[in-house]
């Protein structure tokens, strides 16, 4: 068995890196997390002509400075993990800029091969790239590929394996940076080589250039390892910097960037790149954008697309959701039929099946939503949305890139805040990122939808769709205004630069879509197996224990006895067998008995730990119109919003609340004296805006800090409560309730 080969994949964002990675590794990839840093790494395996290859997908970057986590992660991986070969994926239709990163790899001296991707797109644009010419000039292999179709990938890996096997002693690239800097570099290199300064990690010239670029990470390392040498080097650097600022009004960094591009230009002018058409010719993407980002049509098209996503998600997922709902109900009945009555059965059905079933039942909806989002993302349209929305979002202290996290968290309707919070990683400014992160939980995620459906369906039956729309708009308004509030007070700070690439429109690959959709859906499902399962059991326990005292149980049993003796014996036995298919008298008896059961269940609930907690909170919650039963459901919602409907059902002694067929719970609420339109809206407002669920809190804690996670819990709950109180009181006093 030949040795395993380690390869790394690196390149610009939008150059097709992920597509190539998926092509090579297929399903055999896993996403991990660098400890302590909010950047994922993707690692996959595949076999090529009998050799096992491990491929690490490095974050997409435009450069290798020390100014973003992605760049640091990529650079550290290259110098520490030392992969045997780096595959640098380069977009042929955008060659010049892509080669900027390539230059830096070459200066770092890593064993490299260029995968020249998107040659088909280049050809369409009349751009011809001579791969062998480029290879000759750069001194490394260049293999043309089309990652979408997989064309060229075999040859690519063949050559990559060859590079890995040669174990060259690579000569890092030498680019001239102009007289002043070149002279300084020679002096710096002399000093660095003399002291053996960081020479085990970086080539000496590379270190020199990094110092001239003011690279924080390397400078910090330098001071740590050899303070005297570091000081001397820094002095040399500052000398030339001062000189350059005085004479040419530029910093060394700018000169270095300019010369890199100068080097690139000289390369591509030597017969590498030819343009067949005029360079100001409009590409297909540009023509599409003329319409899509047009002043009038742009917003209209955007709203149309968002509406289409909304309709698609809801209508297509309706069938699978009801199937799953029926499946869960059937499962529930089977279990109920087979287990003896008692605590264990109650825990399994009321606790686990209803709690977890509520989450799983909605997976199809979430999955369709994520699929739609993946289409918008992979096609490039979402970048246009960020482009059009940036000006508006900036008013609220946010960024065009904040749109994605909002939509993922349920901005259209349904989603999940967990992938939403993770999606904020694209925001560079920490303050903007925090503001987005803290406000995405206000969106109507998939867990809140059943509650919205239940309450709107029960109290506003005539105008359901309008009210749903209204509450969606409200969630956006609250989110944006809170963001503005945060950004003006606790999160004041600078904005992320909006300098972004607008990638050409692309037809997404099905494989890419499915992988993207599954990644986010799986995050949602994991919730069910972990938190919700535990919480469902806990809530069940709190609602069951302590049970009624033996005296009270006896009293209810006696009531039932009294009823039974009032009916002839055969009716009694028939009732005991099948309570549903019985003649009128038996039905009447069944009804009477079930009322007694209901009363007993209610009293038991009042007596339980959850009930007592609910009762205790009633003294303040009543200002918002919430009675003790509602309180219990809301407390459960702290852990996971999905359990609110099932807990409410149990609290209203329905026992079995199928979240899809919550009409009967809805009817029960309609008839309940405590409930009216005012209470319903107050409850909705509270549920929409109070503390994020447990898992989101943990996610916020990981992405930001526990301080902010706790802030999110308390601020949101306080805000939601005040809002609910205000609304309820106004409704009550004006007689609307």
């Amino acid at each position, binding site marked *: 068995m030949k040795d395993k080969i380690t390869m790394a994949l690196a390149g610009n964002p939008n150059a097709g890196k992920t597509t190539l990675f998926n092509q090579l590794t297929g399903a055999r990839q896993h996403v991990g997390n660098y400890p302590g840093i909010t950047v994922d790494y993707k690692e996959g395996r595949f076999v090529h002509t009998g050799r096992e290859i491990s491929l690490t997908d490095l974050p997409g970057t*435009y*450069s290798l*400075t020390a*100014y973003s986590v992605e760049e640091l992660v990529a650079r550290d991986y290259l110098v520490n993990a030392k992969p045997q070969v780096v595959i640098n994926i380069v977009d042929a*239709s*955008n*060659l*010049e*800029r892509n080669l*900027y990163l390539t230059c830096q790899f070459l200066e770092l001296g890593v064993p490299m091969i260029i995968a020249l991707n998107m040659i088909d797109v280049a050809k369409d*644009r009349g*751009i011809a790239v001579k791969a062998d010419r480029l290879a000759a000039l750069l001194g490394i292999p260049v293999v043309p590929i089309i990652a979408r179709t997989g064309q060229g990938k075999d040859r690519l890996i063949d050559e990559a394996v060859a590079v890995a096997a040669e174990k060259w002693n690579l000569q890092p690239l030498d680019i001239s940076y102009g007289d002043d800097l070149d002279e300084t570099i020679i002096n710096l290199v002399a000093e660095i080589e003399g002291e053996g300064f960081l020479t085990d990690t970086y080539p000496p010239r590379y270190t020199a250039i990094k110092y001239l670029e003011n690279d924080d990470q390397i400078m910090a390392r330098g001071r740590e390892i050899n303070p005297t040498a570091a000081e001397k080097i820094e002095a040399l650097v500052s000398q030339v910097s001062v000189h350059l600022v005085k004479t040419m009004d530029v*910093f060394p*960094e*700018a000169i270095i*960037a*300019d010369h890199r*591009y100068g080097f690139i230009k000289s390369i591509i002018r030597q017969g590498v790149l030819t343009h067949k058409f005029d*360079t*100001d010719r409009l590409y297909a*993407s*540009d023509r599409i*954008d*003329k319409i899509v*980002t*047009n*002043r*009038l049509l*742009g*917003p209209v098209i955007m709203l149309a697309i968002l509406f289409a996503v909304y309709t698609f998600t809801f209508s297509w997922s309706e069938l699978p959701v009801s199937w799953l709902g029926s499946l869960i109900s059937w499962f529930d009945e089977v279990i109920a039929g087979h287990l003896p009555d008692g605590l264990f059965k109650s825990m399994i059905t009321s606790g686990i099946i209803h709690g977890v079933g509520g989450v799983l039942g909605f997976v199809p909806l979430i999955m369709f939503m994520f699929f739609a989002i993946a289409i918008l993302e992979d096609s490039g349209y979402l970048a246009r949305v960020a*482009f*059009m929305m*940036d*000006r*508006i979002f*900036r008013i609220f202290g946010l960024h*065009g890139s904040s749109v994605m996290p909002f939509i993922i968290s349920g901005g259209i309707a349904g989603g999940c805040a967990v992938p939403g919070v993770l999606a904020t990683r694209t925001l*560079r400014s920490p303050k903007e990122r925090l503001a987005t992160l803290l406000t995405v939980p206000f969106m109507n995620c998939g867990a809140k939808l059943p509650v919205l459906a239940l309450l709107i369906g029960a109290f506003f039956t005539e105008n359901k769709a309008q009210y749903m729309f209204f509450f969606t708009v409200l969630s956006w308004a609250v989110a944006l205004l809170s963001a503005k509030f945060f950004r003006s007070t606790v999160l004041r700070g600078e904005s992320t*630069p*909006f*300098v*972004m*690439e*607008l*990638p*050409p429109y692309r037809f997404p690959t099905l494989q890419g879509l499915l992988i993207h959709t599954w990644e986010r859906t799986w995050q949602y499902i994991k919730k069910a197996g972990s938190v919700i399962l535990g919480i469902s059991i806990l809530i069940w326990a709190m609602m069951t224990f302590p049970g009624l005292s033996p005296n009270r149980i006896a009293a209810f049993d006696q009531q039932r006895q009294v009823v039974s003796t009032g009916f002839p014996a055969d009716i009694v036995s028939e009732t005991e067998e099948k309570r549903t298919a019985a003649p009128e008298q038996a039905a009447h008896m069944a009804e009477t008995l079930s009322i007694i059961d209901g009363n007993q269940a209610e009293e038991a609930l009042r007596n339980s730990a959850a009930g007592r907690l609910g009762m205790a909170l009633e003294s303040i919650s009543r200002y918002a119109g919430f009675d003790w039963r509602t309180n219990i459901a809301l407390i459960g919602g702290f852990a996971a919003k999905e359990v609110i409907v099932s807990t409410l059902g149990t609290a209203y002694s329905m026992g079995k609340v199928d979240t899809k067929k919550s009409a009967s719970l809805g009817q029960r609420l309609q008839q309940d004296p405590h409930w009216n339109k005012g209470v319903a809206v107050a409850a909705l407002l509270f549920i929409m805006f109070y503390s994020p669920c447990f898992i989101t809190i943990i996610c916020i804690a990981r992405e930001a800090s526990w301080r902010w996670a706790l802030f999110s819990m308390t601020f949101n709950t306080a805000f939601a409560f005040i809002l609910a109180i205000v609304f309820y009181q106004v409704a009550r006093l004006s007689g609307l309730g």
Partner: protein
Amino acid sequence: METISLRKMKKGQSGLIAVVKSSGELGRRIREMGMIPGAEITVLGRAPLNDPVAVRVMDGTLTLRNNEADYILVHI
């Protein structure tokens, strides 16, 4: 041949970048995306609210806000 700020350029106008007057993170970002002195730049269009602006540089399409475009002076 005059030199104007990128913000003042009209849709469809082209020119060569004269100087990038920004430093720090923004300057770095602008430069690494290819907007360096001597590069050809064309304004493709602006967002519905006139901000940000989309430009063609080195075969790619980039977007930047007006207050960022202020730092880029172009010979037209």
